[in-house]
C-alpha cells in the first residue's frame, strides 16, 4: 500500500462522496445536516493533529471554536468588519491566544493537560456568557450572511458546497502536514518525547505549533458556522461541545485523518437518527460510545483497516 496513492485516492473519494451525496438529499434540511457534519469534520481533522498525531489531549477546543464564532460576530456587527477580515483576524487572535497559553500548559502530561485545557475552555465559556454587553450573553447574538467580493453565501445548499470545498482543502492540508518533516516530528512527539529530542526535535515548539494549528482550524470553522447559522449562543463553547469534539476524533480513529472525519460525520448524524427514540437517546448514545471503544479501542477506521488487512492476508 503506497502512501501517495492512499492520499490522492482518499481525497478523490472524499470529493466524490461530497459531490454525490446531495443526490440523496430531498430538501435543505439534509444540506444543513451535511454542512454541520462537514464543519465538525474540519474541526476534528485539525484536532486530530493534536490528539491523534501529537498525542496531546485537549478538552477545551470548543472554546477556540466559540472564540472564532464570536470574533466574527462581534467584529462584523459591532465594528463593521468585512466577514473575511473578521474571520482572519479572529483566527489570528485565537492563534496568538493558543500560542500564549500553549507554552506553559503543554508541559503538562495526560490528565493534567486534560484539566488545564478544560479549564481554559471553561474560562472562555464563562467570559462569553458574562460579557453580555458585547456577546449578548446566554441569549446569543445574530450575524449577517457571509459576504465577499459583493457575493453572499446564503442558504444551506450554497453553504454545503463551501463546506465541502473547505473540508477537502483541510484534509489535503492535514495529509500534507502529516507526511512532511514537521508532521513526522509531531508523530515522534507522540511516540517518545525524549527519543525525538535527542535527534534534534524541539518537542515543546512542535507541541505548541500543533496546538495553535488545531485552534486555528477550530476558530475558522467557528467563524463560518456563525455566519451559516446566523445566530450563536455561548453554549457552542461549552465543556460538552469540547468533549463531543474529542469523542468524534477518538471514536473515528486517532491518528487517522479520514477516521476523525468519519467520527465527526457519524456523531453529527447520530442525534438526528436517534431523535426518533428521543427518550432513549442518551442511553443509546452512551452505549454506542462505550461499545465502540471497548471493541475497537483504536477507533472505527483503524480497527476496520486492521481487520480487513488480516483478512486480506497481511497486505
Amino acid at each position, binding site marked *: *500500500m503506497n502512501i501517495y*496513492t*492512499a492520499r490522492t*485516492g*482518499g481525497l478523490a*473519494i*472524499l470529493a466524490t*462522496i461530497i459531490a454525490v*451525496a446531495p443526490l*440523496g438529499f*430531498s*430538501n*435543505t*434540511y*439534509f444540506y*444543513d*445536516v451535511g454542512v*454541520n457534519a462537514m464543519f465538525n469534520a474540519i474541526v476534528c481533522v485539525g484536532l486530530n493533529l493534536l490528539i491523534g498525531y501529537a498525542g496531546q489531549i485537549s478538552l477545551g477546543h470548543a472554546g477556540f471554536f466559540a472564540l472564532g464564532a464570536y470574533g466574527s460576530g462581534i467584529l462584523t456587527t459591532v465594528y463593521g468588519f468585512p466577514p473575511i477580515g473578521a474571520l482572519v483576524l479572529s483566527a489570528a487572535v485565537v492563534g496568538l491566544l493558543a500560542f500564549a497559553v500553549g507554552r506553559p500548559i503543554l508541559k503538562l502530561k495526560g490528565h493534567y493537560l486534560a484539566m488545564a485545557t478544560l479549564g481554559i475552555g471553561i474560562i472562555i465559556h464563562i467570559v462569553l*456568557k*458574562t460579557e*453580555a454587553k458585547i456577546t449578548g*450573553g*446566554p*441569549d*446569543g447574538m*445574530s450575524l449577517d450572511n457571509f459576504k465577499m467580493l459583493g457575493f453572499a453565501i446564503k442558504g*444551506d445548499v450554497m453553504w454545503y458546497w463551501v463546506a465541502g470545498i473547505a473540508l477537502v482543502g483541510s484534509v489535503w492540508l492535514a495529509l500534507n502536514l502529516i507526511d512532511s518533516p514537521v508532521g513526522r516530528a509531531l508523530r515522534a512527539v507522540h511516540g517518545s518525547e525524549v527519543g525525538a529530542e535527542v535527534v534534534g526535535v524541539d518537542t515543546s515548539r512542535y507541541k505548541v505549533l500543533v496546538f495553535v494549528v488545531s485552534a486555528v482550524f477550530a476558530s475558522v470553522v467557528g467563524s463560518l*458556522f456563525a455566519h451559516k*447559522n*446566523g*445566530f*450563536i*449562543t455561548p*453554549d*457552542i463553547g461549552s465543556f460538552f461541545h469540547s468533549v463531543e469534539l474529542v469523542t468524534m476524533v477518538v471514536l473515528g480513529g486517532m491518528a487517522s485523518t*479520514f477516521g476523525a472525519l*468519519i467520527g465527526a*460525520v*457519524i456523531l453529527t*448524524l447520530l*442525534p*438526528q*437518527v436517534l*431523535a*426518533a427514540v*428521543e427518550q432513549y*437517546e*442518551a442511553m443509546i448514545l452512551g452505549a454506542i460510545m462505550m461499545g465502540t471503544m471497548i471493541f475497537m479501542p483504536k477507533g472505527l*477506521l483503524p480497527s*476496520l*483497516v486492521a481487520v*480487513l488487512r488480516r483478512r486480506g492476508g497481511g497486505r
Partner: protein
Amino acid sequence: MHNLVKWGTAAVVAVGLCGLAGHARAADPIRIGSTLSVTGPASFLGEPEKKTLEMYVERINKEGGVLGRKIELVVYDDGGAGDKASTFTKRLIESDKVDILIGGSTTAATMAAAPLAERAEVPFISLAGAVVVVEPVKKWIFKTPHTDRMAAEKVFSDMKKRGITKIGLISEDAGFGKSGHDQSLAVVKNYGIEIVADEVYSPKDPDVTAQLTKIKNAGGVQAVFNFGFGQGPAIVTKNFKQLGMAVPLYQSHGVASKDYIRLAGDAAEGVRLPAAGIVVPEQLAATDPQKLVVTAFKKDYEAAFKSDVSTFAGHAYDALQIVLAAIKRAGAVDKAKIRDEIEKTSGYVGTGGLVSMSASDHMGLSPSAFHMLEIRKGEWALID
C-alpha cells in the same frame, strides 16, 4: 485501502440517509412541529411542555381533530442548545413539512429558530420568556409566556407598595436568570428602586451564602429579588434563611410550582413571587374569567401525570389553543391565513391570562396576567 475507504464511507452515508429519510408522508393530518428542551438544564420547561402538547393533541384527535383532520405532533429535543434548535427547526420545516411551529422552550432556542420560521413563512409560537422574542415584532413569530420584564415589573410594584427603595438582586448566570436580570435593571428605575447589590450564581452551585452575605452587607438592603429557576432559587431561599436575613425575599415566576416549596421547605415561608392564575385556581375570585380555564387544565394535567402543574405547561396549552382556534377561524390549513388569524386572537382566556394580539403586539398578554403570591404554611396565598 481505496475500497475500504469508499465502502466504509458509503455505508456511513447510507446509514445516515436511511435514518434521516425514514418519515412516511401521509397527506392528511395537520402537522405541528416542536423543538423543546426536554433534556438539559431547561428540561423542567421542556418536559411539562411536551407532556401537555402530547396530552391535548391526543385528546383532540380522539374528538375528531380540527376541520375534520387529525393533528400530528412532531417533537424534537434540542437540549436547550441554539444550534440544535436551528437544525431541528429546519428538519421540522423541510422534512416533516409542519404547518405550524410551537416551541423553543428557551430564548436561545427560539432566537436560533426564529429566522428559519421567518424565511420559510411558518407561523411560530414560542414558549420562551424574554421580550426579544416579540420586540421588535417579527411577522411570523408569536409567544405565549409572560415576559421576564412583566415579572420584574410586578415584583417592583409590589415592593413599591411596601415602601421598599433599596434592594439586592441575585440571579442565575444562565439564560432565564440573565435575561431577567437585564430586564430588571432596565425597568427598576421606573419604580424609584435602587439595586445596591447585584450578584450571580451558577445553576449548579451547592451554596450561595457568599453572594448573599455580600448583599446582606451592602448597606440599606430592604429586600432581595432572585431571578432563576431549577434548584438554584431553592438553595438561595435556604441560604437566605440560614444567614438570618430579615428582609423580604422575592422570587420570579420561574419557581411558581409546588416543587419549589417542596425543595425549599420551611425556608420558603413568606417568600413572594409573581405567578399566573394557574398556580392557584381555587383561590381566584369566582368572577375571574381565568378561573374555569385554569381549574380544568390543572385537573387534566395532574390527573394525567401525577405531578404538580407548572406555569410552563400552561404556556404550551395556551399556544396550542391559540393555534387551534386560529386554524378553525382560518377554515383551512394555510400558513399565511393561520398567521393572520393568530395575530387577530382577541379575548382568549388562557392559563397565563387574557390574550389579545395585534400587529404590534405578538404576545398580547395584559399586565394583569400576573398575580402576586406569598407562601404561607407551605401553601400559595394570593395577595394581589
